[in-house]
């Protein structure tokens, strides 16, 4: 029987009275690249910490190649590459020292991968990591992870502190080395646009532990934004009704609308459904209009992400 690299089973976690997940279950299949998306505070970092085994959930389990995440065997740890937030590594080592140190622990160590990436920095091998910029350090850390040749990579906010060039380099290198489809990657990033070039599936986390897993292409083609000009919404009562919905999670009240955002001169309605179905929701609220008042707006991944998760 094939074991998925990562499985999350009935996870419950809370900080005090604030519930982060309630019965969260997920499966991460082998060979896929997953982008973990969600607004600040929905529990992305918490989930990554639980997956990495550095936080014990209050209930439920996470399994990494079948091992419980907080009790992973050394053999399983050798199959997992972790990138910690802010590209943490041993700052007191030099470029060569950190490679020699890590190589002792990994049987499949590929030294050439590390130096292929680190040589791009043009620094001597005795250059201390603590003297490096965030971008340079990210290269060292990525080199170390790729040299491990792990089957599963968990990358926590790999883009933090990187400029556009280093971000591009990071993603391009990862893509190049992972194109054989033998590796599973779970990553988070605040730069949504980078995921467009990289991930297969996106995992949306929303407040309260709601989760949606979808293919990136399917999400990009099925998720729509319609604009409703404010002056087409007659009557203050209806306007305030829409404004009130914009402050809540619209999807809870309306059947087809996932999110509703209020702007100065228009409302934006986000949906996985058709314009007609959205109009039916609006008619249910008392808005009488013919279809042309809704204009579809083109979105990039970041617009779609904000549209799906909401601005507030």
């Amino acid at each position: 029987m094939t074991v998925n690299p990562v499985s999350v089973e009935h996870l419950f976690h809370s900080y005090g009275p604030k519930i982060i997940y309630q019965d969260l279950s997920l499966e991460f299949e082998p060979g896929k690249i997953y982008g973990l998306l969600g607004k600040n505070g929905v529990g992305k970092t918490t989930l990554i910490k639980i997956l990495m085994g550095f936080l014990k959930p209050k209930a439920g389990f996470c399994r990494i190649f079948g091992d419980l995440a907080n009790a992973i065997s050394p053999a399983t740890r050798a199959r997992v590459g972790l990138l910690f937030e802010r590209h943490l590594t041993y700052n007191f080592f030099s470029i060569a020292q950190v490679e020699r140190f890590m190589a002792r622990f990994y049987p499949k160590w590929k030294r050439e991968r590390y130096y292929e990436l680190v040589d791009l920095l043009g620094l001597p091998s005795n250059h201390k990591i603590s003297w490096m910029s965030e971008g340079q350090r990210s290269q060292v850390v990525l080199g170390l992870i790729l040299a491990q040749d792990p089957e599963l990579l968990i990358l926590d906010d790999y883009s933090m502190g990187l400029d556009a060039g280093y971000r591009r380099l990071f993603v391009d290198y990862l893509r190049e080395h992972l194109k054989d489809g033998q590796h599973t990657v779970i990553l988070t990033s605040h730069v949504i646009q980078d995921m467009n070039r990289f991930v297969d599936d996106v995992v949306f986390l929303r407040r309260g532990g709601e989760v949606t897993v979808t293919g990136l292409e399917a999400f990009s083609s099925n998720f729509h934004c319609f604009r409703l000009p404010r002056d087409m919404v007659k009557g203050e009562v209806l306007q305030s009704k829409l404004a009130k919905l914009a402050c809540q999670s619209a999807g809870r009240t309306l059947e087809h609308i996932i999110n509703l955002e209020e702007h100065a001169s228009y409302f934006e309605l986000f949906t996985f459904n058709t314009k007609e179905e959205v109009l039916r929701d609006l008619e249910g609220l008392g808005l009488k209009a013919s279809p042309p008042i809704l204009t579809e707006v083109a979105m990039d991944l970041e617009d779609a992400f904000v549209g799906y998760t909401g601005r507030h």
Partner: protein
Amino acid sequence: MFNVLAAIFSKEYVKTRTSMLILFALGISLAAVIYFDLNRLFMLDHPEIVWYHTLDLKQIPYGIFKYLPMLSATVFCFCQFLPEMRDERLRISLHLPCPLGLLLLAHIVYGLIFLMALMIAESGAILIILGRKYPLAYLPEAFWTMLPWCLAGIYAYLCCAWVLLEPKKKTKVLGLILGVCICTPLFQHYTPGAFSTAYLPFILGIPLLTVSLFLPALHFRTREVE
């Protein structure tokens, strides 16, 4: 296993070599101070008077050494574990594919080996200095007098490691209390050599406390609260 120990030892060496050098220099400087002090004593008074003060009145001419092992151990522990705890870098080590117990033990054993070597060098230097001025029969008494101070240094290191590694505040305080409770009797002003028959429990406590450091490391690894 040997590979893991060698790797961890090399990492710890790179990280702590400057602090090791400074602490060693400090120890040698202090031995030099004791040497010059002792010379001055023997110049100002007749040797039999100095001997009388030391052997009969039980004055300790190397008393300046008393708190050095504890101070050195605490400084060294901070130099060893603070870089690991800053930004929780210890997570990198804890993810290495080797058993947690072995990994932790390698770190602690490295610290203990250095501290013991440092203390043996410092107290050895003091004993050599004393041997030049006092009868050889006095040296065992001096040795038994310095031993509790060195033991306090070892315990200070272990308890300090506990406090630094432990993520839970209450258990951190427990480590601190433990350190104070163990070290305080070792610094009491007893007759020199008074502890000579009671060292066994103190020495046995070292491996026990070393093994118990597994607890804060485990708390750090799988903590339930942030």
